[in-house]
Every structure is written in structure tokens, then in C-alpha cells.
């Protein structure tokens, strides 16, 4: 084992300072449920581990005055599930995060880590993209915002600049009549990696879908926002023809791999099926008449 260090700064400025100074040998530690597995497998050998959990801002769950939410990058799934408000406002995002791993993993794993790990199959990512969430990044040159869908660059890679750290997620305020949902296809009932994941976020006014966002996971090198599927839903009453069109748009957006979890044809087929089921749940939550 080469030289390696561990630091747990109390402030974000300090964390960004040591993280950016250490260059590409440094790794951020939030819950560690990916990083420690990768270290053990020899996939990464960090020169410096920067533990961000002692930074107050990384642990906040805050409902803003306009009805949005800020969720710190290191907030674990278990902590988020205990928040009295978050799961009521964003049930789809919460269930996506809570699907990741076991009870033990939920005690540590964070949405920030799930996004920065860069897996095309990360469960929280399609739900966050469907929610229209943005992230705040802080690097040596200061802060900036990025849409969640702009973060993944490919399997295991993100568009964060060198030295940048993900600080929090901002979820927008919700109009009346909104609902979101996330479903994934796995061959078992628990503890598995998505073959296909689908996040949907809808607003319905007088039976008509006025806002829709659809995102698919595990069907392409990155999680994808599927605007064509949303366009098929917006303006419709979520009737069978609109759902068929959205479903076809989801299938068309797929560029999956063949692997032991599913073939290309299977993943494409399932993406269309999951779209319809996920829309159904989101619409019920939106209070569809």
C-alpha cells in the first residue's frame, strides 16, 4: 500500500483546499459504501481521503421558504427517511434513495455519493433528474450550480472539475397537484442493481398533465433525461395513446449494454413498461382525479 492520508475537515473551504491540492489522487469520503469497496478491490488507491461528514453544510436537510429543499451531499438514506417532511414532498426521490443497498448501507450511503460514483445504474439519479434537482459544487474557483443530469459523464466519471466537491442538492418548490415516483427492475426483491430504473415527476391540473420530467437509468452510459417522453405526456390526460407514445420515446432513448443482468432487447422493452407503471404511481400521488 502506498502512502495514504485521512483528513476530516470541519469546514468546506478547508476540505476543498486539501482536496484540490492533492490532485487526482484524492477521494471524497461520504458514506464510503462505494469508495471502501473500490479500495478493497484495488480499483482505486487514494493518496488522500477527505471525509466530508464533519462539515455542517453537508448534513443539512432544509425546507426553504418557497417550498424547495436543500439536502446536503453526505445525508444518509436513513437520516433522510426520518425527516418528517422530505418524503411527503418528494416520495419518489426518497424511495429511490432508500432502495440503495441494505439497512446497513442506508445508514451510511448518500445521494451525493450515489451521483458522484457515476454509475449509470445509481438508483437516486433518475429520481433526482426527474425532480429537476440541481447541485451546488464548490471548487478552488468558488461555487457554481449544475443540473443533476449534467453531472454524469460516463460510467464512473462525472463532469465535476478537478478539485470540485458536491455540496448539496436543491429540489425546486412543487406546484399543487405534483407527484413523483421511481421504479426499478431487478431480478430479485431486494439488494440488487437496477436492470432499468425510471424516475417520473408530474404536475396535473384539472386532469391534464402540465409538467413532466422522465429519466431512465441503467440503459445508457449515463442516466438520461428523456425529454421526448415528457413531451408526449405534457398536455395529455395521461390517456393510453399518450402513455404509448411516452413509452416508445423511452425505448428509443435506450442505448444499453448486454450483460448478465439483462440483454439489450430486454432492457429496452422494460424501459417502456416501467415508464407506464411509474407514471401511474406519480399520477396517483399528484392526486389524479
Amino acid at each position, binding site marked *: *500500500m502506498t*502512502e*495514504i*492520508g*485521512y483528513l*476530516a475537515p470541519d469546514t468546506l473551504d478547508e476540505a476543498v483546499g486539501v482536496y484540490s491540492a492533492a490532485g487526482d489522487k484524492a477521494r471524497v*469520503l461520504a*458514506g*464510503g*459504501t462505494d469508495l*471502501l*469497496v473500490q*479500495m*478493497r*478491490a484495488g480499483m482505486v488507491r487514494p493518496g488522500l*481521503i477527505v*471525509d466530508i*461528514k464533519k462539515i455542517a453544510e453537508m448534513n443539512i436537510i432544509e425546507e426553504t421558504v418557497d417550498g424547495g429543499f436543500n439536502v446536503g451531499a453526505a445525508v*444518509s438514506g*436513513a437520516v433522510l427517511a426520518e425527516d418528517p417532511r422530505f418524503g411527503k414532498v418528494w416520495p419518489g426521490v426518497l424511495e429511490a434513495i432508500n432502495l440503495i*443497498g*441494505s*439497512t*446497513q*448501507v442506508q*445508514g*451510511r450511503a448518500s445521494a451525493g455519493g450515489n451521483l458522484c460514483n457515476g454509475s449509470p445504474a445509481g438508483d437516486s439519479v433518475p429520481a433526482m433528474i426527474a425532480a429537476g434537482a440541481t447541485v451546488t459544487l464548490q471548487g478552488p474557483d468558488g461555487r457554481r450550480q449544475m443540473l443533476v443530469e449534467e453531472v454524469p459523464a460516463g460510467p464512473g466519471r462525472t463532469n465535476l472539475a478537478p478539485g470540485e466537491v458536491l455540496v448539496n442538492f436543491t429540489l425546486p418548490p412543487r406546484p399543487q397537484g405534483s407527484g413523483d415516483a421511481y421504479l426499478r427492475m431487478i431480478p430479485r426483491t*431486494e*439488494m440488487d442493481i437496477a436492470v432499468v430504473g425510471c424516475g417520473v415527476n408530474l404536475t396535473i391540473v384539472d386532469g391534464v398533465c402540465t409538467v413532466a420530467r422522465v429519466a431512465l437509468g441503467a440503459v445508457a452510459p449515463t442516466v438520461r433525461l428523456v425529454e421526448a417522453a415528457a413531451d408526449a405526456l405534457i398536455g395529455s390526460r395521461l390517456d393510453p395513446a399518450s402513455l404509448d407514445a411516452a413509452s416508445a420515446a423511452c425505448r428509443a432513448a435506450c442505448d444499453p449494454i448486454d450483460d448478465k443482468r439483462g440483454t439489450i432487447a430486454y432492457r429496452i422493452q422494460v424501459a417502456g413498461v416501467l415508464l407506464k407503471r411509474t407514471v401511474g404511481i406519480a399520477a396517483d400521488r399528484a392526486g389524479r382525479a
Partner: protein
Amino acid sequence: MAKLHVSANINGEPTEFLCEPYETMLDVLRNELGLTGSKEGCGSGDCGACSITLDGRLVCSCLMLAAEGGEIRTIEGMAEGDTLHPLQQKFLELAALQCGICTPGVLIAAKSLLEQNPDPSETEVRFWLAGNLCRCTGYDKIVRAVLETAADMKEVSR
């Protein structure tokens, strides 16, 4: 690089130890502190044999760095002196174990469940314990033991 000096609280005892930055809490518990009750099954967070609580929350000790410290509870802290925890007693009575490798992790996880939810349904027990693998396939006895313990503890507290 020098070893890190870490202050933690383990089973109620303030504890100090030295560790390498990359060492897991499981490594330190077993190799430095002689607390070999927590087992290493997979070492990657899949099997739950290394389950402990960290600041009151159920985690895999193989997925945390020892350098993080914190308030740790392990299987060694479960019994009070010679008096077994009701879960431990029930596991013995119902033979809810065979080889025993998964048992410390199952007990820690089950205790954590009953602290959060004193009256779980069978489904809730099974989902909560989904991250604790038993290769002797003793799940039915484990689930029954947890449910009976919950019922007994409710009776006692009544």
C-alpha cells in the same frame, strides 16, 4: 506516514487506538482491540456479518474507516455481564443459528430494529435483515426468534 491516533467510544468505554488511514473499523475491532465477535464475510457490505452500530445507527464495520471514530456498539456489548440480551436468549432457545458466523451481525441488526420498531411485522423483519446473509439458510428461525423476542419484550414492558 504515521499511524492515526483515534479516540472512540466502544461499548460504553472510551477507547483510543492507532490505525492506518485505510484500515476499516472491522480490521481495528478484530486485529487491534481483540473484539473478534464482529465477523468478516464479504468485506464489501453485502453480507452484514460485521454489523455494528455507529452513533446509534446500524452500519457495516467493513464499510467505515477506523479513522472516523464515533460511538460504536458491537456484539461484545450486547449482554449485560452474564445476562444475555433477550434476543441472544431467544436465538439459543429457538436454535436460530447453525454455524454462527452471521449470528453476531444478525443480533446487532435485530436489536437495532427493535429499538426503532418494537412491534415489527414479519415483512418488516425480513426487509430490515435483508442485508444479513445466512448461508446455513436459517432465516425462518431467525425471523421467528426476532418476532418472539419482540412479543416477549412487549409483554415485559406492559
